[in-house]
């Protein structure tokens, strides 16, 4: 298997050693520290940055990324990965633009339901067929892109009726963008639901050691499918945020959000090996990534370096957060 290969009989010793605890303490503050340092650095570079206007704009830009990363975090917590979120999000923008004339106000619900169902289908394929999650979602990525290209005729579709998405462009109290509030709500609600039900322990158990979770009676398969479902629904919601900003649906609109979303998750300190992490971390990670994106041009770095930075960040962050006690052979 090419994902972090856990050998079958999970013989990994006691998962938490002294060093790991210290390391985890550090990584748990890493995203917040990075966020503060970035803000400070940007303010020094351009004193005009720390104003209400630019922070509001940054928050608004970050909203779709936060939602995407939050959804995919659940899958990562289970020990898998979802590489299809960006393609699914693009497909959802096309759905939205196509369905809006017929469904009107119900389109939002319909799109989120559709993407949730697609996410669930991926989860079922992963669980039933025993295919590694990254292969299922890589396959999903290309299938969704193909569907989006075909049904949209490979071009953007204008959204004429803007009333349905108007609420997302409002500002709460005249300051906080509604899209960002919705993104925060997603993180808060999902986190609360996890905490107040056994779901959180099931997800963590699945991520830390799937075979142990199975033996302990956790409904591992159901939990995994649920994680993929939420991830799909989040991709749909992110799509609606994108449409509310761009007034069109396009088969490639969100494709460039995959790397930032993965970067947000790993920068937040969620271990790619599963179990360790949270949605809050991904929120912080997404803000860090957005600030980088917004901030690079301010500091005077050409945006071509953005990609290189993502690549370096992903590798470095995964290296820092990887749970080495669990992975004996890295494939």
């Amino acid at each position, binding site marked *: 298997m090419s994902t972090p290969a856990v050998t079958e009989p999970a013989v990994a010793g006691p998962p938490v050693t002294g060093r790991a605890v210290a390391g985890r303490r550090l990584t748990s503050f890493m995203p917040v520290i990075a966020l503060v340092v970035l803000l400070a650095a940007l303010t020094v570079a351009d004193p005009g940055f720390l104003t209400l206007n630019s922070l509001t704009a940054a928050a608004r830009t970050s909203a779709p990324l936060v939602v995407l990363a939050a959804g995919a975090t659940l899958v990562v917590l289970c020990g898998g990965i979802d590489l299809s979120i960006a393609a699914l999000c693009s497909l959802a923008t096309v759905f939205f633009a196509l369905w809006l004339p017929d469904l009107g106000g119900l389109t939002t619900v319909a799109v989120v339901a559709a993407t949730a169902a697609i996410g669930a289908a991926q989860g079922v394929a992963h669980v039933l067929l025993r295919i590694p999650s990254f292969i299922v979602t890589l396959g999903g990525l290309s299938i969704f892109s193909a569907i989006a290209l075909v049904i949209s005729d*490979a071009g953007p579709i204008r959204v004429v009726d803007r009333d349905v998405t108007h609420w997302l462009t409002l500002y709460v109290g005249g300051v906080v963008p509604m899209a960002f509030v919705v993104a925060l709500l997603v993180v808060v609600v999902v986190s609360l639901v996890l905490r107040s039900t056994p779901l959180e322990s099931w997800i963590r158990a699945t991520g830390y050691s799937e075979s142990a979770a199975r033996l302990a009676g956790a409904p591992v398969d159901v939990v995994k499918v649920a994680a993929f479902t939420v991830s799909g629904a989040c991709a749909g919601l992110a799509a609606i945020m994108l449409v509310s900003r761009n007034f069109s649906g396009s088969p490639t609109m969100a494709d460039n959000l995959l790397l930032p979303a993965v970067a947000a998750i790993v920068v937040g300190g969620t271990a790619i090996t599963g179990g360790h992490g949270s949605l809050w971390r991904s929120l912080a990670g997404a803000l860090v990534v957005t600030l980088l994106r917004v901030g690079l041009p301010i500091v005077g770095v050409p945006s071509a370096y953005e990609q290189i930075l993502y690549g370096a960040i992903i590798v470095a962050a995964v290296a820092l957060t990887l749970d080495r006690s669990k992975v004996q052979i890295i494939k």
Partner: protein
Amino acid sequence: MTSPADADLEVVHARRPRPRRGVSLRDAGPPVALVVVFGIFAALSPGFRTLSNVQNVLDAAAVLTVVTCGITFVLMMGSIDLSAPGIMGASAIAVALLVANNRNDNDYGLLGVVLAVLLGAGLGCLSGLALVTLKVPSFMTTLGISAVGLGVATLMFAGVQPNVSDRMLAGLAVERFLGLAHLTWIAFACVLVGWLVQRYSRLGRYAFAIGGAEEVLALSGVRVAPYKVAVFTMAGAFYGLAGVMVTSQLGAGLVQAGRGYDFSAIAAAVVGGTLLIGGRGGILHSAVGVLLVTVLTNGLVQVGVSPYWQGGVQGLIVVAAVAAAVIPQRRRNQVTK
């Protein structure tokens, strides 16, 4: 196959012969599928069964073949490689800027091609090093390296498309030898080189062994890490060459030169019978897989299916092929990540 000698040797493991029969079936499956698919399309479409279309299929398969040659070794080790788009983009732009072009006064000709391939090898080496030293899973390191490659390509692109005016490079895609473009012959050469490496070099055999049982190999005193880095470096070199070939076809360097090739190559390798868990398959399997994927793509277009479905069909094939390969081990393998 269950020869009597085998049966004698393996009294203890009575179940052993079964997976073996599976292997031989798997070896025969892809070529049979290729013939069947070819036959179906030939029956359905008059345009498909012409000689010129067969030439088209072979020419269209050239770039994918080279990419797949690289990725096959990585898959044989049980790793995965998503870095093809980035590395191909970087080398495509690099070669366009190094040979005679409209952006600068360089005219290095063949040396430029070599440098672009070396750039690819360097990037591949980076992902191998990140895997071995930082212990980051390969699908993450290669995703990162792909982004780095795209960034490097965008930097070199600098907003102005470099058009190639070099005769030699542009000629590779146009000039024909025995009815096939020179690029197609390069692809054949790559398959040959890949096969020789796989069959006769320590690198190829260890790549197999790493995929089969890395722990055993390490315990028997082999230092696995250098071979892993070497395999990723070689894969990078193949992607670099593929990027050069795309530039030759387009006559210009594009950042998007390698878009989608990572997945197509994985699809081709998997369809050809290379297992994602490593230790099975090989270059010749992958070559058959490439032909299968290309014939399918070409045939569907000939039959009148929208070319936009291409990626979707590949996605379905990969999921189906991986699922089929996993079925024999279903019961043993409880944990899937």
